[in-house]
């Protein structure tokens, strides 16, 4: 189900792909989203499907705060801006994992009886698990929404312009920090959405993000930086490649196919499939 990777990657596509800021804590954002969904279910019996918007809203605030407290300063660095971004967000990821261990304990948790969990639906004789199907649907919607947002609204133009030339943008009265804080919030909200849906059928533990984060980076880079459609296509390709690799190689090697395809693509097209940067 490549669309799931797409769903995880869509938030990253915004932060990493469109704003050109490295976020090494993306997997940890996902982890927070999954935990939020889990606790809403356990304590308030709200089904993950219903709580997804709540989780997304919470993550929006979280993402914007992270930008204002950390990333804003990392971007201000005159020297080694790239490394400062990598290591400040990486440090943040470690802190978040530590906090999760402290407050949520390292136990594996899962959501036992949700509306979607474990059900399958039969489409033309093929049984599809419902949660994945919903995930795919949400993923398509999220991508369509982001695409519309970036290309059709003033905010999208402001975002693009801010990345291109923050100085010029300031001259026409756009506050760079507000635009980017909003962008980070939106990116975090999208990955929160992904977390809420994935909480239904994945175990939740403090390190869960790490296993998805690398694939999300590969997905975004495969599609090419600066392209929403590229990240979407990247997600589908990653999912297909993984499915095919899983058929041919032992399961423990299934990610090798994804990585190999990434290398192959960038060797032929050094800017990814649809990249503009």
């Amino acid at each position, binding site marked *: 189900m490549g669309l799931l990777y797409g769903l995880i990657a869509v938030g990253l596509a915004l932060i*990493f792909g469109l704003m050109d800021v*490295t976020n090494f804590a993306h997997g940890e954002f996902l982890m927070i989203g999954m935990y939020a969904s889990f606790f809403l279910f356990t304590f308030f019996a709200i089904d993950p499907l219903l709580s997804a918007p709540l989780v997304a809203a919470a993550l929006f605030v979280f993402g914007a705060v992270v930008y204002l407290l*950390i990333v804003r*300063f*990392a971007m201000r*660095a*005159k*020297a*080694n*801006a*790239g*490394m*400062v971004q*990598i*290591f*400040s967000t*990486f*440090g*943040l*990821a*470690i*802190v*978040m*994992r*530590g*906090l*999760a*261990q*402290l407050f949520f*304990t*390292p136990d594996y948790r899962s959501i036992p009886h949700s509306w979607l969990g474990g059900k399958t639906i039969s489409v033309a004789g093929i049984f599809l698990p419902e949660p994945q199907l919903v995930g795919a649907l949400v993923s398509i919607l999220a991508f369509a929404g982001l695409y519309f947002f970036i290309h059709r609204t003033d905010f999208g133009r402001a975002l693009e312009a801010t990345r291109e030339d923050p100085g010029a943008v300031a001259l026409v009265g756009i506050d760079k920090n507000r635009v980017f804080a909003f962008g980070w919030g939106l990116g975090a909200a999208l990955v929160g959405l992904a977390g809420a849906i994935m909480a239904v059928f994945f175990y939740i533990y*403090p390190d869960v993000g790490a296993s998805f984060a*690398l694939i999300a*980076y*590969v997905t975004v*880079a495969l599609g090419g*930086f600066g392209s929403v459609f590229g990240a979407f296509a990247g997600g589908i390709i990653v999912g297909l490649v993984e499915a095919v690799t899983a058929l041919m190689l*032992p399961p*423990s*090697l299934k*990610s*090798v196919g994804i*990585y*190999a395809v*990434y*290398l192959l693509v*960038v*060797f032929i097209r*050094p*800017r*990814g499939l649809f990249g503009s940067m």
Partner: protein
Amino acid sequence: MDKNFAARRRRDLIIAALLAALAALAPLFVKNVYIQNIMVLTLMYAALSQSWNILSGYCGQISLGHALYFGIGAYTTELLFTKFGVLPWFGMLAGGAIAAVIAMGLGYPFFRLRGHYFVIATIVIAEIGLLLFQNWEWAGAAMGITIPVRGDSWLKFQFMRSKLPYFYFALALCCLAWFVTWWLEDSKWGFWWRAVKDNPEAAESLGVVVFNSKMGAAAVSAFLVAIGGAFYAQFLAYIDPESVMGFQFSLLMALPAVLGGIGTLWGPVLGAVILIPMTELTRSYIGGSGRGVDLIVYGGLIVAISLALPQGLVSLFSRSKAKGATR
């Protein structure tokens, strides 16, 4: 200017010799095995970070996949030792050579990539290496290799009773990596690399063969890191793919250089001297609870240092001296 530069280099060399001598005497006063262990690790990471710095700092090709070369060094040494009885000293050199050849082989396609695409490619290739080793039965797969104990000897580079020989080897490796960096800094390669880092197009137009420069940096860097990997394997006497090739090694190699000052001669050493004891101490003093407090402190410090001193700790020293000193 030239005279200043030569004087600075001479001064660096003298300071390094003094520091090395001081470090060599340290075990006379520090008898605590736990502290000695931290000192060995600190020196090893200083050496690794110094090597990483050659490619990523001086030449500007940020690699987050150096764990691959570290693992290759460790595995080559131990496979040759356990399967064919080749002494670790030769295995070490073989591992270094293999790593350098692989680095150049990978460099051929990789160095066409720029920015994020390059960084992700380096992460991905190390991850592929990790997965392959985890599934390679002959090399122990995910179980790894336990190095058989044959008694303490320099010949087999194996010491059970004392950590001192490891300490001196790590010190020597650290000195070697530092000296290579020092020497390269003033060679034509050093100038080429800095030119490639700052502006590859301009460098190319002035006759620097950008591609060859990157290849040279990659080979030297990978060779030294692989030696470090071989050392680590002998030191632990046990290796498995995750413990010598995991992504955390790529980051741990980069961190000291970044914290100390990327692309500087003293940055990696300074970064390692502060970072590694800090890592080990937080782990053992507050990590015992198993509740992640050590991670919170450690991660918080990384965030704080990288935000507060984007040019690294070295910038604290150079700020008072010449303004606009050569980066």
